[in-house]
Every structure is written in structure tokens, then in C-alpha cells.
């Protein structure tokens, strides 16, 4: 792996993070809406809030400063890992995200596992089978899966497996069993995406001369499919990996609400509800950093999987 390739990727990652901070700052702090008034109205139990109290609150959170000053101040703090304190609870934002993270990571990993298995099985069987109707059925599955609202799929699964069949718990986060339905709900849309991309690149790979060569040498159809074609077809499918992981995080917002699970998604939903700007910004930044990190990893993985990229002369 060449040094310039690595440096260029790293530089891009840092630039995206800085820009994500700026975009979220612009969205959250420049748009109209007075979080301090909302916060004060919520905490004072209906008593009218005086202008002096509002000013004191603004001063406490640094909201009385001019916007460029606020921006630089917050950017400097964010560089040191300080994302501010929550308006609603007064808790450190980094701490709040850290507390909410473990159940979400657990859920996201299970969702990812389901997505990869589902996507790979659908794509491989659809391109392997000789039966036309099975192949068409499997190829139609992903476009069906991305057209269904995620929250509705979750509720229908609960309806069927919890209330009708009584097999799995409907809500909560206790034990492995309570993880199955949320993971399927979360993993279905990214799984459909993986299936679509992988099926397409598999079809392309199976048309390549090296597949014909392998067949002519007498390699069995299974080995050609899994060894020769899949190895090459995986590389384009990796491109969507960053997107998939970023969206698992976003999907947890809906899935955790449907299944009443604790986690980052629930934290986001409650924070949006009370206009808790620092927490929302923290979550957005966290999601962007996960996206950037996963893409960086994928970029670093490419040369290992495909020597042509590693040996290419940078333009």
C-alpha cells in the first residue's frame, strides 16, 4: 500500500468530519427557533419566564455570543472530544452517547449480520439457480423489501411472531431472543441493497473470460460460482458497505422506537422532541464519523483485495 494513497484518504476523511461539523452547526444553530425558550418553558412548570432568566440561560450555554465566536469555540471543544452538555438533562453529550451506544452497537451488528447473510444468499442463489421462476422471485425480493416502511415491517413481525405465534418477545431488550426481530427489521433494507449490488456484479463476473476458462478446465459449477466469480464480484459490493453501516445507525432510530429498546436511536428521538441541540449534533457527528471511518477501512481494504488498485500510479 502506497503512502500517498493512505495520506490522501486520511486527508479526505478529516475534511469530511470538519465539514460535517460545519453543516450540522449551520443547520442547528442558524435556523430560527429558540431552544432556550423551549427549555425554560419546559422546566418552569407553566410559570412565565422572565427575560433575565432567559439571558442567564443563554449565557450559561454560550448562546449569547456572536455566531462565529460560538462556532470557533465549539469547533475547538469538539477537537478535544468535548461535544458540550445536554440542554435537557445537563449531562455531558459524549457521556450520553457513550451510555446509549452498547445496545445500539449490539443491535447494529446483529442487523449487519442478517443483512450480509440475507443479501449474499439471495444474490448467490438467484444467480446460481437454473430455474427461471426462482431466480425472478429472488430478484424481485430486494425491490419489495426496500418499498416497505421499516416501522411497519417491525410491527408486522411483532404481530406475527409475538402475538400470533407467541415465539418471541415483542418489546424490550432482555436476552438474545429479544434481539431477533429488531435485527431482522433493521437488516432487511441494507440486506436488499447488498443483494441487488452483489447480484448485478455476480452476473457481470459470470460473463468474464476467466469464468469460461475455469469452466473449460473442468471446474465444477459450485466452485466457479463461489471461488472464481464471487471473489471478483465482492469488490463492487464493498463500495456500498460504508453506506450500509451508516444507515444501520439511522435505522436504529425507527427500530428502537418500534421495539421500545434503549440506545442511540431512542436518545435521538427524545432529544429531537425537546430540541436538545447539543445531543442531536453529537449524534449527527457520531454518525458521520462512523460513515467516514467505515469508508476509510473499505478504501484501505481495496488494495488488499484487488492488487490492481495498489499498483496503480496515482493520477
Amino acid at each position, binding site marked *: 500500500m502506497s503512502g500517498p494513497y493512505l495520506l490522501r484518504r486520511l486527508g479526505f476523511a478529516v*475534511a*469530511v468530519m470538519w*465539514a*460535517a461539523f460545519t*453543516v*450540522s452547526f449551520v*443547520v*442547528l444553530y442558524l*435556523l*430560527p*427557533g429558540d431552544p432556550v425558550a423551549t427549555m425554560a418553558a419546559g422546566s418552569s412548570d407553566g410559570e412565565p419566564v422572565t427575560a433575565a432568566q432567559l439571558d442567564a440561560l443563554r449565557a450559561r450555554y454560550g448562546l449569547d455570543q456572536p455566531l462565529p465566536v460560538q462556532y470557533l469555540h465549539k469547533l475547538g471543544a469538539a477537537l478535544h472530544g468535548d461535544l458540550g452538555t445536554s440542554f435537557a438533562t445537563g449531562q455531558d453529550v459524549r457521556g450520553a452517547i457513550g451510555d446509549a451506544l452498547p445496545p445500539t452497537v449490539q443491535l447494529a451488528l446483529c442487523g449487519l449480520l442478517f443483512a450480509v447473510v440475507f443479501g449474499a444468499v439471495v444474490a448467490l442463489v438467484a444467480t446460481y439457480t437454473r430455474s427461471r421462476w426462482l431466480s425472478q422471485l429472488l430478484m424481485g425480493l430486494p*425491490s*419489495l423489501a426496500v*418499498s*416497505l*416502511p*421499516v*416501522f*411497519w415491517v417491525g*410491527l*408486522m413481525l*411483532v*404481530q406475527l411472531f409475538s*402475538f400470533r405465534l407467541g415465539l418471541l418477545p*415483542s418489546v424490550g431488550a432482555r436476552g438474545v431472543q429479544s434481539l431477533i426481530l429488531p435485527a431482522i427489521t433493521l437488516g432487511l433494507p441494507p440486506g436488499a441493497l447488498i443483494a441487488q449490488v452483489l447480484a448485478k456484479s455476480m452476473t457481470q463476473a459470470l460473463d468474464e473470460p476467466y469464468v469460461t476458462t475455469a469452466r473449460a478446465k473442468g471446474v465444477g459449477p459450485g466452485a466457479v460460482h463461489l471461488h472464481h466469480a464471487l471473489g471478483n464480484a465482492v469488490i463492487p459490493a464493498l463500495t456500498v458497505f460504508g453506506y450500509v453501516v*451508516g*444507515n444501520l*445507525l*439511522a*435505522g436504529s*432510530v*425507527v427500530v428502537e*422506537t*418500534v421495539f421500545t429498546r434503549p440506545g442511540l436511536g431512542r436518545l*435521538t*428521538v427524545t*432529544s*429531537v*422532541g425537546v*430540541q*436538545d*441541540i447539543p445531543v*442531536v*449534533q453529537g*449524534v*449527527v457527528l457520531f*454518525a*458521520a464519523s462512523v*460513515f*467516514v471511518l467505515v469508508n476509510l477501512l473499505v478504501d484501505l481494504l481495496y488494495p488488499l483485495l484487488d492488487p490492481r488498485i495498489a499498483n496503480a500510479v496515482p493520477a
Partner: protein
Amino acid sequence: MTELLDRGPERADPASPPISPLADDRRERLARLGRFLRRRPGLVVSVLVIVFVLLSAFVPSLFAPGDPAFAVPAQKLRPPGSGHWLGTDYLGRDEWTRVVHGASLSLQATVIAVAVALFVGGLIGLLSGFAGGWVDEVLMRVVDVMLAIPPILMSLALITALGFGTVKVAIAVGVASVANFARVMRAETMRVRRTAYVEAARSVGTRWWVTLGRHVLPNAAGPVTVLAVLEFGLAILAVSSLSFLGYGAPPPAPEWGSLVAEGRNYLATSWWLCTMPGVAIAATVLSVNRVSRALDGEWERAR
């Protein structure tokens, strides 16, 4: 001069049919449309579903003459049957009436979302592709960043700042999908900018904004339109998700997402309350996706 410009796009596309006398052309096209649709029953059903949903949105009383807020507490939580053929909810309101009337708010939000994305994204893409240079560089970096933030989180950040309500949710969803439109529009603009007719327009001294409006925009619009139809389906999903989370219209206004959320508390006993609005969303999105696939070259490829 005008003739040269008008024929430009046809020359660029070798697949376009040969020009024939007008009357013949029309009859042949109708016959071709008939053949095209007969072989695609799914597409016909999709178009019918969309027509039905659009009618429900604009004239809901056509299919459901009742008031969606009219409640008969004595008849609450009735299962689907005669009289209430999608059942009734926890206050005794007719679910069919609520789903039909819900189309109005849900579709309104979707149309606003797509319009915002199309207009803002299209403008960014057009400017970026047409101006090139550092303008292009700056705008595309902004778009890259927007793509790094998952759309639903972007929408949630916007809702945090803007507040709740159907229109605000719609704007939030629209802004979150600006990036895709900007990319496609930029790519198309750059393609069209290099064509002979744009060069010809420039060489005769046409002002740049006239070139942009009369030559570049109409010829770059095709793929963006397909994207807009596709985005329509995604926007229905996004809008109903946010409405499900409770950021949409306040109750008792019916919205597809909030209808599912209301039914959630009665999931164990009254399955129809969650199921039916969800079926409406799924059917609409599937139909829209099918039509967008038909628009995306299926017509041209079918001979």
C-alpha cells in the same frame, strides 16, 4: 440556426424512432402503448393505484364520504366487516375513512419534499456542472458531506431546528435528499454542455443564461425526472417514518405514519389498525417504484 438546435438532441440519441407522417405516427404510438401495457399487467395496476391515491388526496369524499374525525365510541375497535370495511379505531372512527383522508396530508408532504429536493438539488447541480472550476469543486465537496450524514439523521437535525408539523417534516426530508439530485443534475449538465448544439449556441453569441435555460436545462432534465419519481417513493417512506415518530401533524389529523403509530397500542388485539395504513404506504411506494422503472428506459428499449 433554430433547426440545427432543435434537432440536436435527436441526433444525440440514435435509438429514437424514425420520423413518420403525423397521423400514422399517432395511431402507431397508440398501438405500441397498448402492446406495451398488455405485456405489463403489474405496470397497469401500479398506474391505477397511483391514480386512486391521487384522487383520494384531492377528493377524499369520492371514496369516503364520512368525516375522518367522526367517532362513535360504542363501535370502537370493531374488526373489518360490513359497514366499516377496514374496521374502526380506539375511538370508534372508521379506519377506511381515515386512511383515505390520510392520503391528502401524506401526499402533500411528499410533493413538497420532492419539490424542495428537485429545485435546490437541481439548482446546485446545474450551477456546478455549468460553471465548472472552483464553483464546481466547492459545491461538490458540500454535496459529499451531505452524503456522509444518513438522510434520516439530517432530517431529524432539521426538525430539531425547525419544529414539528407536516410542512416542516416535508422540508426536512426534501433538504436531506438534495445531494442526490445535485449529483445527477451536475453529471447531465456536464454531458449536455459538451454537445455540438451548446457549442453552436455559444459560438453565435447566445448569452449564457439563455443557453442554460433553453438548451442545457431541457436536455438535462430527463434523468433528473426519473430520479424525482424514484425519490417520490423514498420521500413517502421518509415522511411516514417521521410522522410515525410523532413529528408530523398533531392529532387528530390523519397521516399514514401517525395512523400506524396510533394503532401500535392495539397491536395485540386489533391487527387492522396498524396493518391497513401500512399497506397503503407500501402499495403506493411499490407502484411509484414500478412506474419509475418504466420511465427509466423501459419504453425506449421495448420495440
